């Protein structure tokens, strides 16, 4: 077992690797975590995700821009790919599966990929439909996978309007499904009007929202574990 000191060192290295978009650094630290038999969940949430939270802050402060965000995401994935096979199956009390994609007519997928990353981190099963996805496909995939969350993304005013139809089709077929929409032209007003449950207006907000979701999942997990012990 790793000592607390070693644990802190590795968490710090994972965090910094993400902040400094250092893929090799993230891999090395992740390999050490595994070699020492440290908890992979701990390394993901308190190392990699914690680094991503700082990246989100830097993005908000306009010290980082999208290129840095993308490079940090690469570093996070480099660590995550090594750690993930060692994650114990979590019983979160939620089903944790999500259908995600960019709507037909739109080939921008950066915001979508950032949200997807946070779901990957949280251990969700992610059905990524990619970009330029025909609207019916979202409904089909939700029904096929019985996912409880659908995330739709559109980057341009000219493609956003398609989301309206998907939302109403999804809700008609399955009133319980939760829908999150995102992208530069989207507003909370539009989300309300069209009946979406949540929205993210840009990459940073998507990241923040996704982090919030992950944080609340963490909390649920801790509560579930406390209950088990109690």
């Amino acid at each position, binding site marked *: 077992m790793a000592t607390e000191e070693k644990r802190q060192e590795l968490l710090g290295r994972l965090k910094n690797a993400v902040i400094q978009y250092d893929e090799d650094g993230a891999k090395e630290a992740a390999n050490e975590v595994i070699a020492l038999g440290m908890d992979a969940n701990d390394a993901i949430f308190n190392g990699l995700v914690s680094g991503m939270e700082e990246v989100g802050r830097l993005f908000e402060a*306009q010290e980082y*821009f*999208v*290129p*840095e965000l*993308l*490079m940090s995401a*690469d570093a996070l994935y480099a660590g995550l790919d090594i750690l993930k096979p060692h994650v114990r199956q979590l019983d979160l009390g939620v089903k944790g599966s999500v259908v995600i994609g960019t709507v*037909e*007519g*739109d*080939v*921008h*997928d*950066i915001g979508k*990929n950032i949200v997807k990353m946070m779901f990957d981190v949280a251990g969700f099963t992610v059905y990524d439909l990619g970009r*330029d996805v025909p609207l019916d496909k979202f409904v089909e995939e939700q029904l096929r996978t019985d996912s409880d969350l659908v995330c739709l993304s559109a980057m*341009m*005013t*000219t*493609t*956003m*309007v*398609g989301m309206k139809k998907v939302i109403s089709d999804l809700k008609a077929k399955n009133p319980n499904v939760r829908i999150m929409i995102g992208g*530069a*032209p989207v*507003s909370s*007003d*539009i989300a309300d*009007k069209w009946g979406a449950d949540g929205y993210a207006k*840009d990459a940073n907000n998507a990241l923040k929202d996704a982090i919030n979701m992950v944080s609340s999942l963490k909390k649920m997990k801790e509560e579930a574990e406390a209950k088990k012990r109690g």
Partner: protein
Amino acid sequence: MAETTTMTPRERVLKLFSGAEVDRPPCFSGMGNVTTAGLKEFGYKFAALHSNAKMMADAAAATYKLTGFECGVVPFDLCVEAEALGCEINVYAHLEDILYPTIRKKIIHDEAEMETVDIPADFTKRGRIPLLKEAIKFLKADIGGEVAIGSYVLGPFTLAGQIMELNDLLKLSFKKPEKVGRLLETLAEAIILYAAELEDAGADYITVREMGATSDVLSPRVFKNLILPHLQKIFSRIKAHTVLHICGKTNDIAVFMTESGASAISADQKNDVAETRKKIGSALLFGNYDPYNVLVAGTVETVRQTVRKCIDDGVDAVWPGCDIWPTVPAENIKAMMDEVINYRR
């Protein structure tokens, strides 16, 4: 209220561009403004417009004829240059809904191919470039006596994002700026060639849409060092009046935008243009109403308030933040025109 002035919309726009006094701000755009009402007049399908010069011109002219919106602009999509460079596009011909064409197949698939991309010798004869010239001629013959005729090209960075993965382009702008710079240099040449064709066909003004270079995505430093020099080259070579449009929050680069050499700069609804006005002094500034949330989804009163705010904030032309979404209600566009004509600061 009807207008008492004798200035035609064409004179007003051209005078504004040349720095002369105008009686009021014009209400026009340098980006697409086709409407479903216009399509209905002719029974055209949106997807069919992109590959037929006559239909493209008819649809563009219909906006002015039906609403008085003070320009005629073609094309409606953002894929002309990329297609002429060899990309494959999708016009979504199978769908009844309005979807704008996108790139289906890119021409750069990896970093190495960035170095080998070339402008074909017959570039201006390829793809839809000849068709666009024809469309401008039709449009000019139809309404060119009354309104200024506009067209647009992409900025080099945005065009790069069309012909290669945007993800890779963004990361390489950070990791290998020299490599991206060389690509932008090549693409700037292609853009200059295309713009010359549009000018030759009779475009009175050309908007350069460098949408991908917004400060929401790229740092102002990268914009200044990597992108601005190529924009400067492009603007120095276009003889028609020019506009530089960049989406999102652009106040951190507004001064750089005025240094690009464009006749005017254009901002979208996310940008605080009152602040822009302070930063850029008397340079021409167009903007910045939301072409969907206000013009399509808003009430007549929201539209009027928004127009007044644009004018109060100091724009020289009331102009949308992006392409106008085609289902715009007639009463909204009418309210916008009426407010621009009658409102005085």
